């Protein structure tokens, strides 16, 4: 099959990125889909041929990823987010508005083929909620009126301007903020290598390569008390020290830039405004563990960020910060990006590796852990994009300096993406241990509309929810855990008094049921059942015995599933049933804190 020259070039570029051909499968399919609008038999057979795969290997992989499709979408594919942060700010209403306006339903195409519509999960624009994507372009802080204008422009063949940067990432610094990794946010052209070099860029790399041994680097990171920013909070230095030294296998550095945890959008601005910081962090990590190849696995929806990262990587190669014999130190490091194609589960580290190997994103059994048997069966360090972006500052200014910014065992600062019912949703860098109450009232400007606080998700929808009387805690890993929740991914979602917690539980379960990979039975069946029950409940068709049953089912997913996604679905649900049981009971009587009684009565 003859391919258009740009796609041919892209395919060849992709084939050159991996030691195993199959790894190019998912990116090839996505780029081919961009070209042809959908994945027809002919192009799939061509891809199979080029990668030496049989057809079932291609189709089973295709059928896993939600961005890949066999049928064409419209010229403008409108993807409206209705996940929690967007829902709290009118995402559902926005979605219904677009539906009415275009006269098409979910995953339908307009008769002329101009538009198609899809209700999607969190797209990493939570601080700009409600948000939608037109193909790969982000549009944020929307209202029905703004959407009307947007759709008209598209209809007229004009190109509406996408969001220039993640909403709420550029703002006047608050006194409470301690900008370490976000300090280049707002500087013009901060993504360019020249600006990066003018602001102490690549100095840490020079130091690490020329003045430090690998052990010294690991020690410095240990001293910094940096804990993983991806969710689990595992000490980064310790993770690096697990990588075997005496192996003749290649080793890999993976940056987890899959950012899909609902309520979280902090890796996006990091890569958007400071891609070189992440690149520098990855090369230093490579030096620390003896790895010479790195992959940045970026979620497929972040296409413009992949382009920014690719451009930054080219700049770094051109100036000798990547490639052979970096800065004359004799150390080699190669780095490429890899696109996902729509799957939350691929943020889970072992599923991410499967996905990077071109397969369905099923998690792997552990032990063995990735540090020993990871990507392509080789020792692998996998860290969140933010964790790795922190490394240059630690090496430049010292682990102790970094540790002292935070609290004992919780070093440094982290980025919070604060969304929901607050006056100033946005991305803020705060020291570890910052009080949650001040984060809500001072940093995020308090609850919008003068309303009262009802609930907080501290770090992404996988965390148990805290109620308004539980917010007098410092935001560090241990204190939040003691309060019964998790610091998680830094995606803090704030809910006001009018929020219906049954609806919240329902929407959260919809997400996990949609994203369950389906591999293990308790999660596959459990999330589907819980979704069903919560839907039923919210619509007014719940039964009294459903309340303890929802609790029992969730508790029986906890710790029994193959990977932590089952826990992630169960934990918020258990906390909502426990803390807002009264709202479930009220629903049985047709009452709801955010819907008029008549609506429920009608449903009953």
């Amino acid at each position, binding site marked *: 099959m003859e391919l258009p020259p740009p796609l041919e070039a892209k395919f060849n570029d992709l084939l050159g990125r991996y030691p195993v051909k199959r790894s190019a499968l998912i990116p090839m399919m996505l780029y081919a889909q961009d070209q042809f609008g959908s994945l027809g038999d002919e192009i799939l057979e061509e891809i199979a041929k080029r990668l030496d795969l*049989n057809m079932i290997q291609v189709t089973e992989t295709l059928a896993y990823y939600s961005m890949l499709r066999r049928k064409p979408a419209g010229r403008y594919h409108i993807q409206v987010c209705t996940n929690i942060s967007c829902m709290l700010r009118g995402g559902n209403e926005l979605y219904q508005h677009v539906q009415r306006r275009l006269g098409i339903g979910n995953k339908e195409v307009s008769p002329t083929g101009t538009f198609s519509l899809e209700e999607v999960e969190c797209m990493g624009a939570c601080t700009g909620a409600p948000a939608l994507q037109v193909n790969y372009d982000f549009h944020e802080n929307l209202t029905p009126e703004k959407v009307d204008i947007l759709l008209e422009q598209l209809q007229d063949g004009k190109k509406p301007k996408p969001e220039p940067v993640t909403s709420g990432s550029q703002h006047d610094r608050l006194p409470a903020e301690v900008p370490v990794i976000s300090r280049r946010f707002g500087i013009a052209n901060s993504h360019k290598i020249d600006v990066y070099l003018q602001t102490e860029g690549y100095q840490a790399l020079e130091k690490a390569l020329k003045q430090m041994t690998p052990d010294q680097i690991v020690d410095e990171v240990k001293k910094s008390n940096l804990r993983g920013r991806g969710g689990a909070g595992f000490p980064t230095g310790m993770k690096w020290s697990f990588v075997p030294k005496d192996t003749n296998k290649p080793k890999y550095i993976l940056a987890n830039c899959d950012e899909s945890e609902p309520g979280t959008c902090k890796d996006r601005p990091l890569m958007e405004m400071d891609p070189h910081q992440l690149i520098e962090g990855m090369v230093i990590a490579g030096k620390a563990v003896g790895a010479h190849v790195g992959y940045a696995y970026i979620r497929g929806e972040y296409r413009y960020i992949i382009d920014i990262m690719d451009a930054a990587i080219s700049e770094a190669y051109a100036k000798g910060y990547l490639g052979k014999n970096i800065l004359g130190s004799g150390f080699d490091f190669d780095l490429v990006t890899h696109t996902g194609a729509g799957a939350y589960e691929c943020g889970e580290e072992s599923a991410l590796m499967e996905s990077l190997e071109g397969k369905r994103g099923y998690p792997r059994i552990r032990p063995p852990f990735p540090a020993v048997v990871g990507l392509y069966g080789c020792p692998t360090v996998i860290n969140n994009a933010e964790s790795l972006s922190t490394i240059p500052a630690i090496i430049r200014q010292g682990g102790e300096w970094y540790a002292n910014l935070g609290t004992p065992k919780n070093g440094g600062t982290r980025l919070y993406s604060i969304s929901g019912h607050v006056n100033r949703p946005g991305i803020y860098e705060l020291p570890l241990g910052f009080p949650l109450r001040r984060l809500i009232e001072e940093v995020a400007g308090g609850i919008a509309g003068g309303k009262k606080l009802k609930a907080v998700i501290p770090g992404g929808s996988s965390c148990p929810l805290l109620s308004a009387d539980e917010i007098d805690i410092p935001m560090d890993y241990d204190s939040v855990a003691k309060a019964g929740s998790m610091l998680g991914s830094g995606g803090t979602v704030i809910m006001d008094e009018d929020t219906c917690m049954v609806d919240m539980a329902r929407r959260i379960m919809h997400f996990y049921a949609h994203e369950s990979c389906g*591999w293990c039975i308790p999660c596959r069946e459990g999330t589907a059942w819980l979704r069903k029950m919560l839907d039923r409940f919210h619509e007014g068709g719940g039964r009294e015995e459903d309340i303890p*049953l929802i609790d029992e089912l969730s508790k*029986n997913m906890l710790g*029994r*599933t193959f990977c932590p996604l089952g826990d992630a679905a169960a934990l918020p649900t258990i906390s909502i049933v426990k803390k807002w049981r009264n709202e479930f009971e009220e629903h049985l009587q047709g009452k709801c804190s955010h819907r008029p009684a008549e609506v429920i009565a009608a449903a009953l």
Partner: protein
Amino acid sequence: MSDTASAPQPLIPVPRGPVPKAPLRQRKMVELKIDGKSVSVPEGSTILDAARKLGIDTPTLCFLESLAPVNVCRVCVVELEGSRTLVPACSRKVEPGMSVQTDSERVRLSRRIVLEFLASSVNVSTAPAFPEYLKRYDAHPERFGLSAATVAQPVKVDNDLYVRDYSKCILCYKCVEACGVEAQNTFAIAVAGRGFSAHISTEYDVPLPDSACVYCGNCIGVCPTGALMFKSEYDMRQAGTWDESRQTHTDTICPYCGVGCNLTLDAQDGKIVRVMSPVGNAVTHGSLCIKGRFGYQFVEIQPAQKEK
């Protein structure tokens, strides 16, 4: 793999004279406690192996001795002292000094819910293990309320040899493993979709005759629920004539080639209705090819060759 799987009784003529024995490899033994009883098993065994050695019947659905454990059904979970989570017995390797509970309240509840999940969404009527499991764990699939999401769908009858009824599929992946890397290397079937919509499918969901399937029937041999079934069995069940009490099982050797695969011929009223191969068999590990699996019609064509 299990040391305790009972060896099939081969009807192969055994050569006379002493058979040389391979020297036994010395394997370290590991001692652990299960339900308060001590047991010692070779290093590398699983908790399931150890439990079986003690005669404890642990339910399993997705586990098969001849395939790599996929670890998905979680019906085999047990309580391991010191572990926050329940662990799957089928894949968790024994360690010295482990203390395991196989029948605690937590374990029973967990198993019960898995069984309820499956029995509420899947047609388990031809899954041999289910009725007893459901009773043993007091499972009531109906308690989640009405309108269960199910995987109900029409049976796929697209060839003369076997049918696929995915309304009976619990997604244990055994057929995929048997067809792919683990045994057959054909790669005719795989999983499509995700979450509750995940399902077994051929490429583009084409009928079997258009797929890469070579009709080895190995997927039928491993399916624990009867979702994959000999067409002969399916037709008889439809007609209401399938009756296991009238069936005989005869072990023999496949006559087609020199490999010498072991076959078990299931016959009803003297007619072969199904051909299987014992999973524990050293020659086949349960796998056959189309000739051994489906090429049995000649038996009936030949002049009467009465069994027994």
